[in-house]
């Protein structure tokens, strides 16, 4: 009996040690998670985060989010306030088309939603001391590669809040610029300079942040645009547009006529098939899958 009691006591002690270890590791995990998301899903129920900081020359946001950043702030860095939806899940905000005016009194409407291309919106201001580098970079055609084919649009506040004369001096003639206070409100821009990347086909924001120069923000822009580049795939073959369109049209007409990949009529008659009118499938069809044919839009020459 004594032996049984001793064994049970030992087991109890071991179990207590194990439970204590588990609780400690659980607490450590919670602490790390809290560092990643200080606000928590209940909006600040957890201890306050460190104050927001920006790099020299960057206008701090009006409503500082509880995070720390050096220069480039991204969603991971929590400078961008998570959009908590009604369902409790966070996701990027919706994109908005932009309407405003130009520097010469022109009326401008730019589509950023439901279009094939992505748009890099650069929010700048005439009174922003940290925007000078952006203006210079935007005027430099060598910076065009930053956008990776996306459209770059500078958005300032409306003429009633900006010095149009200063903007005319700072903006390059080749800079696409719209003055729109509404756009600043739509995208909840905290201050300038600020960059938002809008996914055109999906109509949603896919990246946003601030920095001291376009070069510095290039990582953010590249990251935001990388999804599309990955979707296109590095193996894609570049063809002239007219060739692509012609091939698609030809494929469509052929398929409508019942001529599918590998159809005998696609090949010149040879000695062995010239006399054959039974539509026998040539060797090519057995070696060239239909999917591959579709990708190439036309059959390879028969060898």
């Amino acid at each position, binding site marked *: 009996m004594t032996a049984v009691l001793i064994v049970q006591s030992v087991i109890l002690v071991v179990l207590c040690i194990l439970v204590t270890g588990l609780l400690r590791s659980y607490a450590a995990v919670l602490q790390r998670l809290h560092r990643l998301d200080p606000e928590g899903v209940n909006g600040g129920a957890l201890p306050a985060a460190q104050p927001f900081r920006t790099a020299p020359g960057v206008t701090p946001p009006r409503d500082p989010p509880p995070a720390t950043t050096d220069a480039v702030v991204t969603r991971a860095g929590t400078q961008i306030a998570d959009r908590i939806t009604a369902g409790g899940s966070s996701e990027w905000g919706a994109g908005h088309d932009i309407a405003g005016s*130009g520097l*010469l009194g*022109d009326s401008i*409407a730019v589509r950023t939603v439901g279009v094939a291309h992505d748009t890099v919106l650069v929010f700048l201001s005439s009174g922003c001391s940290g925007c000078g580098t952006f203006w210079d970079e935007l005027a430099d055609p060598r910076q065009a590669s930053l956008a990776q084919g996306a459209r770059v649009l500078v958005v300032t506040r409306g003429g009633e809040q900006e010095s149009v004369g200063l903007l005319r001096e700072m903006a390059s*003639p080749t800079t696409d610029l719209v003055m729109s206070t509404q756009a600043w409100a739509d995208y909840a821009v905290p201050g300038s300079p600020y960059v938002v990347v809008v996914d055109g086909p999906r109509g949603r924001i896919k990246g946003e942040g601030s920095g001291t120069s376009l070069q510095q923000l290039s990582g953010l822009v590249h990251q935001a645009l990388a999804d599309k580049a990955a979707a296109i795939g590095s193996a894609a073959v570049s063809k002239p*547009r007219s060739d692509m369109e012609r091939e698609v049209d030809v494929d469509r007409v052929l398929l409508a006529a019942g001529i599918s990949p590998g159809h005998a009529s696609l090949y010149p008659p040879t000695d062995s098939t010239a006399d054959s009118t039974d539509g026998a499938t040539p060797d090519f069809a057995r070696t060239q899958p239909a999917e591959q044919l579709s990708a190439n839009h036309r059959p390879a020459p028969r060898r």
Partner: protein
Amino acid sequence: MNAPELTAHGIAVRLPAGCEGRIYRRPEPLAAFTPANRGARSPATAATGPTAPTAPTAPTASGGATVGRTHPGAAGWLGERPGAVVHLATFALPVVRGDYGSGAVESMTARDVFLAMLEFGPECLGTALYRTGSRPRLRPEHFDPNGLQRRIAGQSGAQFFFTERNRPFCLYVVLGSHRRAEEATEQANVLLNAISVQAL
């Protein structure tokens, strides 16, 4: 979201879905055009804002000045009084482009449509070219690959002159693919119908 609306120079456009547009008027050139000042910054651009709304424009059916703030004497000629220009497109309009879409139409895909409506000066009122009455209704047979300012493979264009609310206009429409003329013409008519002209 409501459709964006453009309003300037007595012209209003309620943009159809998927389209974008601009209404502008180039500043009056203050220097004669020379090859040397081509591409230089316009003194008018730097010094002045929009000009008076009654500025007439010397008729030109070809070419087109560069818009935006790139224009100097390169965008016109001394004494020219540019009029209002409307550009509507189903694709992203580049910032540097001509009144008739040069610089923009080159980036069109087969599914795109470009429309330019240019106002001319009052001296054109009542002339035979502009006496055709109301704004045209576009039909596929209007479009021809030879109707382009500069021929681009696959595209076709059409040009019309008319007077509306006592304002003479030239309408120039480019289809991204002539083979899709039927469908594209419908798109172009939607764009055209989105424009309303006010009397000045």
